[in-house]
């Protein structure tokens, strides 16, 4: 059985992100793109200090990706006469986010970034399925699953943390199921916020997440 360790949704005005990072680290994170800053504040909020050295995988999806940074790079490359500033190119590489936060999460062993191909539809069912498979295999002790996006007016992070070991205050367990439970959620970017509402209510004991685009994957949450 896999345990839900944390459910978190965050939203920032882009100008507030550096301050959120400083509040967490006590110092700024230099040369970090907004997606990296979102990854840092979300991951540290999900994992208490005593769990940050445990073997951890990060699976994160994004609709926007580094869209604004890519526009900046295109302007530099296509309109400018010189090569881009190295940081402007690095900011377009989402994979770097995990490398930049590893020193604050020493247990972070691997990371995958999954850009999404449609607005309004996410792939939590795949992220959670992979997390459950890897945790059951013993590949890691915990998996952070996230949806990170930033646009001109808002930067948002939605997170679910999963643990192989039983936790004292885990609100739910997860498993892969063949059929859908009576109550189900759509696979949308804000799934953690919807899940938090279900956990706070007194509805059905189980809830399933079935993705119409993600194969025959159904993830079932059971209240604990």
């Amino acid at each position, binding site marked *: 059985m896999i345990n839900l360790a944390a459910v978190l949704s965050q939203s920032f005005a882009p100008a507030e992100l550096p301050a959120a990072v400083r509040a967490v680290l006590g110092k700024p994170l230099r040369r970090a793109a907004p997606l990296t800053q979102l990854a840092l504040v979300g991951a540290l909020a999900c994992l208490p200090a005593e769990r940050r050295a445990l073997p951890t995988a990060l699976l994160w999806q994004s609709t926007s990706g580094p869209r604004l940074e890519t526009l900046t790079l295109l302007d530099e490359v296509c309109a400018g006469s010189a090569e881009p500033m190295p940081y402007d190119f690095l900011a377009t590489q*989402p994979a770097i986010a*995990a*490398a930049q936060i590893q020193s604050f999460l020493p247990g972070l062993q691997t990371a995958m970034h999954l850009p999404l*191909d449609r607005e309004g539809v996410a792939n939590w069912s795949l992220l959670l399925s*992979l997390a459950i498979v890897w945790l059951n295999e013993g590949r890691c002790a915990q998996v952070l699953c996230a949806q990170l996006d930033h646009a001109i007016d808002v930067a948002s992070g939605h997170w679910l943390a999963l643990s192989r070991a039983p936790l004292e205050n885990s609100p739910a367990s997860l498993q*892969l199921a063949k059929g859908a439970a009576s109550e189900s959620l759509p696979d949308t970017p804000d799934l953690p916020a919807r899940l938090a509402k279900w956990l706070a209510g007194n509805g059905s004991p189980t809830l399933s997440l079935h993705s119409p685009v993600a194969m*025959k994957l159904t993830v079932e949450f059971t209240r604990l």
Partner: protein
Amino acid sequence: MTRPVYIAKTALLCARGNSPAAVASALWNGECSAGQRKLGERAFPYFGLPLDEHDWMVRTEQAIRQVAGQLGKLPPETPLFVASSSFQIGHFEQLGAPFELPFAAASFSRQIGDWLGLSGARTSFSNACTSGFSALDAARSLIAAGLIDDAIVLGVELANDSTLAGFAAMELLSRTAGRPFDARRDGLVLGEAVAAVHLSAKPATWRIAGLRTGLDGFSTTGPNPDGSRIADVTVDCLKEAILKAADIELIKLQAAGSPGTDLAEANALRSVFGQHMPLLLSLKPGLGHTLGASGLAELAVLLACLDADKIPATAGFSKVDPEIALFPMVERSTEHIERALLNLIGFGGGLASLIVERHG
């Protein structure tokens, strides 16, 4: 449920040819010439696809359809896993400002699915140079767990100035050639590729015995020179495969001719394999570094080489670097290989090791 995952088929279009077998044959014959790509006043060697079309999107459709043809007819519902570090940025460069990027970062994967005739589930991966093995890892995890039976994993990396300019700005590119592990190595040579791997639960010649990805946050552009994180991933991969280091007969190196990354990889290999170093091969001097497609492209080529029992020599290596003190194969070999390890060490801290093993 855990079941074996097999490589049912591979497909490839790159600078060296339009099928894995054709590319393997070209490398066996020592072909390694590169073209050139200009960036302002500077020109860099570049391994471009052998396609004359200039319209980026039309050319890309041609490339994807060639690879689709090699894969043969597939059930349209076959899940598709797309790996790329740049997707269609070259298309927007060609269209020019104002750049109307779609809001969904991987929207191009929908077009790729259409060209492949695949209308089922689609997932995209963008982890710089390790994108291909990340996608492969996700697909094979789902097959092994019995959640899907087949998957097409496609790596796409096509010409664009943004990537070339970014790498050039960081002084990561060679102006002459890629020289893996060589004392004179001075950087990477980039290239294009479209590569596909059909994974299946049905038995085939090659099985994925182990696959592990990792992360090295030493710096955003290269691994810790001591190679310790790379070695950790390789050891994890051997453990998953239930193999000893001595069971590996050949290593397809990451080595692209990068001063720092080559050294880190060499240090990792020494710590894992010690005095019993397997045959070492780098394919990048003949293909270029095809970034997000590189893992799948090099896997396709390597399996074609091993199927023919014809392992090419590593081009570009002639002068030993005393700090590295490892020797890629400089002579061709007809040795029969049962198990091979493939390494990827990515820009942005990504690491991956894959072990393939003959089945039956």
